[in-house]
């Protein structure tokens, strides 16, 4: 698990895929990318999200997520999680989850489960930044 400043860049995504490919006993990689939505809220456009995190605890909880996925899905070999902190503009990527497994079925199921656990367990907070620079805290639905 890594927390990075700003958006998850195309270069970082490509590096994650390249790293996953080195695992020659994997036949499937399931990749989830979370993107900042430019929602319209009460006639104001979201232009970015500002993330903050309890970094130490994020790393510890991500490690628990890793272990729980590996114990539930025996065909899964590796899990890569990258989450942004700081400012990420609408249309940019703030979360990457890549699960590599022997076969596609467990890769996609484990990836979906990991995303749910990330949203539920990681101490990360976000504030929507609107076009007029006003801000408001946002909770997960």
């Amino acid at each position: 698990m890594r927390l990075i400043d700003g958006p998850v860049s195309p270069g970082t995504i490509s590096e994650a895929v390249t790293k996953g490919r080195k695992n020659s006993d994997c036949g499937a990689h399931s990749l989830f990318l979370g993107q900042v939505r430019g929602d319209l809220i009460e006639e104001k456009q979201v232009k970015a999200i500002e993330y903050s995190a309890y970094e130490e605890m994020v790393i510890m909880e991500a490690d628990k997520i890793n272990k729980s996925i590996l114990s539930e899905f025996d065909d899964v070999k590796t899990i890569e999680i990258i989450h942004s902190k700081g400012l990420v503009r609408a249309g940019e990527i703030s979360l990457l989850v890549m699960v590599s497994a022997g076969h596609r079925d467990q890769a996609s199921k484990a990836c979906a489960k990991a995303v749910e656990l990330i949203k539920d367990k990681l101490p990360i907070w976000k504030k929507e930044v609107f076009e007029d620079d006003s801000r408001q805290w946002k909770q997960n639905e």
Partner: protein
Amino acid sequence: MEISVLFFGVLAEVTGTQRKHYLSIKSFGDLKHRIEDDFPEIMHYNFRIAVNNKIINEEPLLTHGDEIAYLPPFAGG
């Protein structure tokens, strides 16, 4: 004992601080009262409390140097 208290998300904003050190703390209950006296506005918010990175469900026994964190509902992803 000395305890560090961290505030995150909206709670860092309403308390105006991210970290505060408390000295001469006798117990978790004592610490909670002192925090509520300093920042009564936090009682209007939902939060969970972690001790040394672990969320607690019951009143913990604190030891010198522990780190307490006030955590509003998570919103990652």
